[in-house]
């Protein structure tokens, strides 16, 4: 997956977890928690969906790497290499 696809993948997961949040206007360099209502339980769900959809494992110690969309791209790029974007699962 490339950068744009990873961002799409994360936004799609957020839509699954929090259908009432608007992900369209999310900025890439601002913490997700400052833009939409996401708590630590929701971050666990992002991680669980990454595992379910792409087989990617993220240990608790690394949750902080997913704070922004840019952070997600940097952290997940190597893990999602060669994987296919799944949207609307």
């Amino acid at each position, binding site marked *: 997956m490339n950068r744009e696809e990873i961002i799409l993948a994360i936004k799609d997961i957020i839509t699954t*977890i*929090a*259908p*009432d949040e608007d992900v369209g206007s999310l900025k890439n360099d601002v913490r997700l928690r400052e833009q939409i*209502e996401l*708590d630590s*339980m*929701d971050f*666990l*769900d992002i991680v*669980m969906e990454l*595992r*379910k959809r792409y087989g990617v*494992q*993220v*240990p*608790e*110690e690394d949750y902080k790497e997913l704070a922004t969309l840019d952070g997600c791209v940097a952290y997940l790029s190597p893990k999602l290499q060669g994987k296919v974007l799944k949207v609307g699962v």
Partner: protein
Amino acid sequence: MAQNRYDAIVIGAGMSGLAAGIRLAQFGKRVVVLEKHALWGGLNSFYKRGGRRYDTGLHALTNFVPKGTKSTPLAKLLRQLRISYDELNLHEQTWSRVCLGDITLRFANQFGLLAEDVAAAFPAEKDAFARLVDEVRTFDAFDAEAPVRSARAEIRRFLRDPLLIEALLVPICWYGSAREDDIDWDQFVILFRSLFLEGFARPAGGIKPFLDLLLARYRAEGGELRTRAGVERILFDAHSAARGVRLEDGTELESDCVLSSAGYPETMALAGRPTTEADVGRLSFVEIVHVLDRTSAALGNDATITFFTTQREFGWRRPETLVDTHTGVICCSDNYATHDPQRDGVLRITSLANYDLWCALDEAPYRAAKVAAESAILDAAAAFAFDPRPHRIASDMFTPRTLRHYTGHIGGTVYGSPHKRRDGRSGVKNLHLIGTDQGLLGIVGSMLSGVSMANRHALMETRANQLS
């Protein structure tokens, strides 16, 4: 995976167990929820008698907030379980009240009513009450490391009038204190928010449709529920870590993660570990349900829930007699907003009871005691609502003996042990507590307890457990 091997075993199909089960099944974990009885729901279950369905305990779903209210326990729970707000089909209360002798404070799903009534009845405490409310709004009640504090002592930092302190404690103790004459401060905060700052609602049709929804979610995700599957004991490996359970029929199920909603002393008994008498709660209840030939409103009572004491003192403790008629909760479950004009009136009254005395009775005296207790309770409660006896279509009653039988709680408790384990720690590796004895209360609270423990112990991965 071997047939009897699970990623997680959940003991008890109550609110916390079902919520934990949904979370685990949702992410592909192989999970089984074990229920001793034929029906699920635990403390919030249902049964049929005389062709009529009764809820076992539901007065109110606390933590009610309007659709779209964010960052509240109800919103967090629905998000975690992926259930939509509309699916709950909640009907709001009219209003409720505390009656402390001749003092009445009303409250509703808009906080303003309580603030007004406090200001009217206790004008000198108006500002102090506002400061207490600010503290309750901002206090971190979920710090599992914080020491246990007395709510009475904390409230006294803000309020001076003992009658106002007493009046606030009546509904809060009634809806969740396992401690006599007090409650832990963090639980006071959680309950104050869920009763007064949030509010009361009832799922349309009572607890059954709500449980149907949970069970459907659980099964749709592939979760397994076994009813009539009582746990005989917890099994251990050579290092004294839990490795599964043995059922009463001899079946052995294995898992490195056992979540128990049985209660702390009850779970320790299953694990063969000692507990002390102080771990067993002293508070038990009797409850009377009357189905009426007309609505509660037609009988002159518009309030949804009335928490009363007959004098200006509360006395939240085990009575020396079978029941204590001086304090109680009256719930008119037909006083939730509904569009059904044909609804029955339903009155429930809950009173404090002495478990040991009820359990010492033989069958004939037990039946006689029920009749006498019912009559005394109805006499006392009539002053705060109405006398349902001339309008009774059907009625039923449960006692501490019934509670012990159906909940398995030692001492017939509803709110469990007075010593809460907020982090869910049982002292046994791989065995974690969920539900009442984790200290989260009400339907929403107990479900969040199941969710948080499932997250922590069966879903979240750390570098250490990824390596293993």
